[in-house]
């Protein structure tokens, strides 16, 4: 059973909460490095949370294509096939 985009987005929004230290408002355009100020260690922990949450792999190659929240949601929707 696959989740639709809104459902996936809601789950990712919940997973991102503990990493969003400054409580920045999240939209599809929110960028991980520039807006949320994720460093490489945070990225690693956050990606692991998403991977475990959805039981998927987001390889480094795929991560390189993901800059903002909207792209992450799209990628997760796609990876769940």
């Amino acid at each position, binding site marked *: 059973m696959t989740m639709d985009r809104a459902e996936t987005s809601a789950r990712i929004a919940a997973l991102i909460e503990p990493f969003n230290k400054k409580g920045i408002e999240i939209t599809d355009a929110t960028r991980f490095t520039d807006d949320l100020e994720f*460093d*490489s*260690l945070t990225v*690693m922990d956050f990606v*692991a949370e998403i*991977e*475990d949450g959805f*039981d*998927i*792999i987001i*390889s*480094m*190659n*795929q991560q390189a294509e993901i800059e903002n929240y909207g792209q992450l949601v799209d990628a997760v929707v796609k990876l769940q096939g």
Partner: protein
Amino acid sequence: MTDMLSDNETQGATDLFSKFDPLIEMRKGLLSTGVTDPFGLVMEKVISPTVAMCNGRETILLGTYNYMGMTFDPDVIAAGKQALDDFGAGTTGSRVLNGTYAGHKAVEEALCDFYDMKHAMVFSTGYQANLGIISTIAGKGDYIVLDIDSHASIWDGCKMGDAEVVPFKHNDIEAMEKRLRRIPEGAGKLVVLEGVYSMLGDIAPLKEMIAVAKKYGAMVLVDEAHSMGFIGPNGRGVAEDQGCLDDVDFVIGTFSKSVGTVGGFCVSNHPKFEIMRLVCRPYVFTASLPPSVVATAATSVRKLMHAADKRAHLWENSKVLHKGLTDAGFQLGTEEPQSAIIAVIMPDLERGAMMWEALLHEGLYVNLARPPATPANMTLLRCSLCAEHSAEQVQQIIGMFTRAGKTAGILG
């Protein structure tokens, strides 16, 4: 055609170096405090594997990875001189053209004997061995599962190839297994691990990790750069020590540490391994090692097969230094000494650099490691012991650390 520049117009140039501005500023900031540049040290004269002249001062070397002290071994040096006389200064050619001399075959045989494996392939450096083997064996559609704290040469090998790259948390067996389990059925899998992780000097639980990798049908590559010659019953490394070397498909190693010269290698029992010599670009498109280097390496590798006394002394040195620094109040990378690397954790880069300089003034050279090369953005003073450090030198080192730690405000 109207948007083309006419002959005497020029566009504002983008300086390709502006991306380095933050690093340039950081270095300026650090050096403006008056500390010596920790990345600009010159060894004016090298007296032995453990002593050199730096800034006109006799300095104990404690950050060279010269674990077995082979750099000045008389047999090793004699072999190198002989090869210079007999074969010249260099090969001027690739291994697959005019760059394979008798010495290159001899050192590969020595490696086969040392590891008791069928195939050995020598590269110009260990960096190139990782680059070449990883990028060549894992191709499009394959998956590389690797420890997040892997050496730069492993990461670069991943980047150079076309495989999907999937890192997991350092030494975390469960995190590794989860990722292996999620890989689509039928895809090729390569698990990349290290025996000793050189930043903190900790070892990997290879036996458990390799068992999991095999359960998921993955091939396993282990980089044993920092264990050769002194870990395991025959010095073959951590996998041998934990009794799982037979399940390792590829061992990567280097001549630049225990062997005491330069070069890298991969040893394997894979029946088709020899094809690597034709398809591995960092092996094919570069000149082979000079004859003197392979001669010194072969002699050194063979001597390391019978180095039980040296090995015991190296372990003794590591234990004494680890205990001495712990007792002095320093925070170390591991609770127990797991290898010949002892990492002293610094509060930040600035005080790390101050401590590094204070040690140099005491007459001690250690390795300063800083982010992004370090895990968890730590600043480390990495010490690597040598089998040729005397028991007195180790005591001297502990005294130097204690004094420098007070000077730099690291110890209370």
